């Protein structure tokens, strides 16, 4: 017995609340009533990520994609599709009312995602060079070696509009051109895989899923700028990515795609891996170069830019993993195709690591110009547990918080900077009403204090001072004047710090003060943290009318500071309480209250 059709009913939270369960049951009922329950299997699935058009029903193998389905539609779907083999036209998704109903693959914007960088991730075996080659791998290299001059490669990359995906967004083609024109017999290509922001794992996943795309791009870059040697600088904390890179490099060498006289073209290129010790500052390009040279990783003033004077004083191109992963596609599909995706100034796609208080956390890739609302509420499936959205942090400790009212602005390098945040490498942390802005700012500032290399005073002293002020506010000892001080130091750091670590360290604090000044003032004047995250301002108490005296909280308390007789209301001794929240989490009767 084999089923002829499969009906998938979305069981995501969004669709669930719009009666998908009823649809599911009706479909099964109808299939039985019409005597076709042996021909069709009805199953529930995870979120399709198209929630505003939910509930969604998809029929396989025809790939019919039905939106805004109602429980009453079950009969028609079974009667038409399963029995007569005809799609129910009125339920099919259309981009707009006028357009013809289209098949799933043709609807570019269905699912909202578009995978260029992640084209092979989750598709090929990353440890098989043959599978990479089968999916047009090393085809761009063929072009670069045999059909194009270095100038033509650079012109193509420039025309594509590809910009650095590490955060700053410098045009990749211009970087390559500067290095090509820079005099010198020895030049280098460096891949920056020192991904260090909290919550970011785009580069790790790209390398783990498709290491050859990076190697291919580096050889192409080498050919374009006239370099014969490349380094991949990757953190030692990424063992699996390193392992797969090593395998890939060996395979490419065995096939003659790395090494001397690649494919008989006469062009030589070799790649070595350099492991970083996990210092955040080594993601800054000049510090990274120092680290490769075996020195302590500290930035130096620019100019001269690495394209002029880089590794061991030689012209060096440094590109981020994601930037490089785009390069083979730019050459195989062409600059015109690539530049048709995205916005006017930001071309192509961006990979984001979507984390935090979101239903569908994951690694996503969207065309530039997608709005944050689409990312968070459609792809991400909204906020966990039905809580209220508070803000989203892009760019990690270098970025700022973006709030509800700005969610509809399309993502581009410029738009995010205008909102007081930045593209950054692509970490995206979603926060809900239970997150405290003071606590978050303090966390990021503590990270910057730890990671500041100490070379320049604005960053070394500024981060420390700002952290001290934030700590004071979080403990309820702040004054209103502290906010002005934070802004003053923050602005000074932004202007005067040597590199972007210090130059952007104040962003989380400054943007939260701008959007949530009232919450800062609440901490200062009312000694209150509404999210209950700032431990010193939280008081735990037991509501005697609700407490049944089960004693569970007392057993969980690590101090212990909860006392009481069996089956009688218990009491918390506030002077001993360390505010760990164990009792709050343990109580099944809502008797422990946080104030």
């Amino acid at each position, binding site marked *: 017995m*084999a*089923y002829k059709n*499969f009906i*998938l009913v979305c069981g995501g939270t969004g669709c669930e609340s719009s009666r998908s369960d009823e649809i599911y049951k009706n479909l099964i009922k109808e299939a039985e009533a019409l005597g076709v329950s042996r021909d069709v*299997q009805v*199953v*529930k*699935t*995870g979120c399709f990520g198209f929630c505003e058009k939910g509930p969604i029903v*998809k029929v*396989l*193998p025809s790939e019919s994609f039905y939106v805004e389905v109602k429980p009453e539609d079950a009969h028609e779907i079974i009667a038409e599709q399963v029995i007569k083999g005809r799609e129910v036209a009125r339920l099919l998704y259309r981009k707009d009312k006028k357009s013809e109903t289209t098949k799933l*693959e043709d609807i*570019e914007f269905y*699912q909202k*995602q*578009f*995978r*260029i960088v*992640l084209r*092979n*991730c*989750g*598709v*090929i*075996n*990353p*440890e098989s060079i*043959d599978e990479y*080659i*089968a*999916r*047009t791998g*090393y*085809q761009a290299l*063929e072009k670069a070696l*045999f059909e194009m001059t270095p100038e033509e490669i650079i012109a193509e990359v420039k025309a594509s509009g590809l910009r650095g995906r590490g955060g700053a967004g410098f045009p990749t083609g211009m970087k390559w051109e500067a290095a090509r024109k820079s005099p010198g017999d020895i030049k280098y290509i460096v891949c920056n895989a020192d991904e260090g922001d909290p919550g970011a*794992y785009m580069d*790790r*996943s790209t390398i*783990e*899923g*498709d290491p050859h795309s990076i190697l291919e791009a580096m050889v192409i870059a080498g050919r374009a700028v006239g370099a014969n040697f490349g380094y991949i600088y990757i953190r030692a904390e990424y063992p*699996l*990515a390193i392992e797969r890179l090593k395998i890939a490099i060996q395979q490419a060498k*065995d*096939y*003659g*795609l790395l*090494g001397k006289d690649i*494919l008989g073209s006469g062009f030589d290129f070799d790649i070595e891996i350099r492991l970083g010790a996990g210092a955040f500052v080594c993601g800054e390009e000049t510090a990274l170069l120092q680290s490769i040279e075996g020195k302590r990783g500290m930035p130096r003033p620019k100019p001269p830019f690495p394209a002029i004077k880089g590794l061991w004083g030689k012209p060096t191109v440094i590109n981020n993993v994601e930037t490089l992963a785009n390069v083979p*596609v730019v050459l195989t599909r062409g600059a015109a195709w690539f530049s048709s995706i995205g916005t006017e100034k930001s071309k192509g796609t961006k990979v984001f690591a979507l984390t935090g208080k979101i*239903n*569908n*956390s*994951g*690694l*996503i*890739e969207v065309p530039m110009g997608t709005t944050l609302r689409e990312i968070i509420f459609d*792809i991400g499936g909204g906020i966990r547990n039905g809580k209220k959205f508070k803000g989203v942090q892009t760019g990690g400790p270098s970025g700022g918080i973006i709030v509800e009212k700005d969610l509809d602005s399309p993502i581009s390098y410029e738009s995010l900077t205008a909102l007081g945040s930045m593209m950054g490498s692509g970490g995206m942390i979603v926060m809900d009403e239970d997150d405290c802005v003071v606590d978050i700012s303090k966390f990021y500032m503590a990270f910057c204090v730890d990671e500041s290399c100490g070379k320049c005073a604005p960053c070394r002293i500024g981060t420390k001072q700002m952290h001290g002020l934030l700590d004071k506010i979080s403990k309820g000892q702040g004054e209103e004047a502290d906010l002005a001080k934070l802004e003053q130091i923050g602005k000074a750091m932004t202007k005067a710090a040597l590199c972007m670590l210090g130059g952007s360290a104040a962003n989380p604090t400054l943007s939260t003060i701008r959007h949530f000044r009232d919450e800062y003032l609440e901490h200062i004047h009312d000694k209150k943290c509404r999210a209950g995250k700032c431990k010193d301002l939280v008081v735990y108490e037991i509501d005697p009318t609700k407490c049944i005296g089960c004693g569970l909280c007392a057993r969980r308390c690590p101090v212990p500071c909860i006392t009481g007789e069996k089956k009688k209301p218990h009491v918390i001794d506030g002077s001993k309480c360390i505010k760990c929240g164990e009792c709050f989490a343990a109580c099944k009767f809502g008797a422990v209250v946080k104030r």
Partner: protein
Amino acid sequence: MAKMTLDQLRALRAQKQGELEKRNVEGKDIQVIVGMGTCGIAAGAKQTFDAIVAALEKHNMAGRVVVRQTGCMGLCYVEPTVEVVMPDMPPVIYGKMTSDVAEELVVKHLVEHSLLDSHIFDRPAIDIVKH
């Protein structure tokens, strides 16, 4: 393989492309593909991989099935993820495929040709290499 020339690379690509399209690897017509990025492995993908291999042996399916690994499919919230590609069935991505449901997957999908309820997820985007 020894170092290749341009023509050899092109011939290899054509050959491998054909194999990939026929979905016929090593003479086996069913593929079970396990997402093995750091995220998948942390969620137990290695145990899932082993459990699938064991279940295939137990149900005499091993001769038809190749179990492969791949990188992150992007569905971090439902790791481990497993894709099943086989004749007469639509290709399906399963999430939350911990080792304890591996045998159920083999029995339901591969042996009985039906889908495993509540574990199905969607491929997040179209494949630009094919389209």
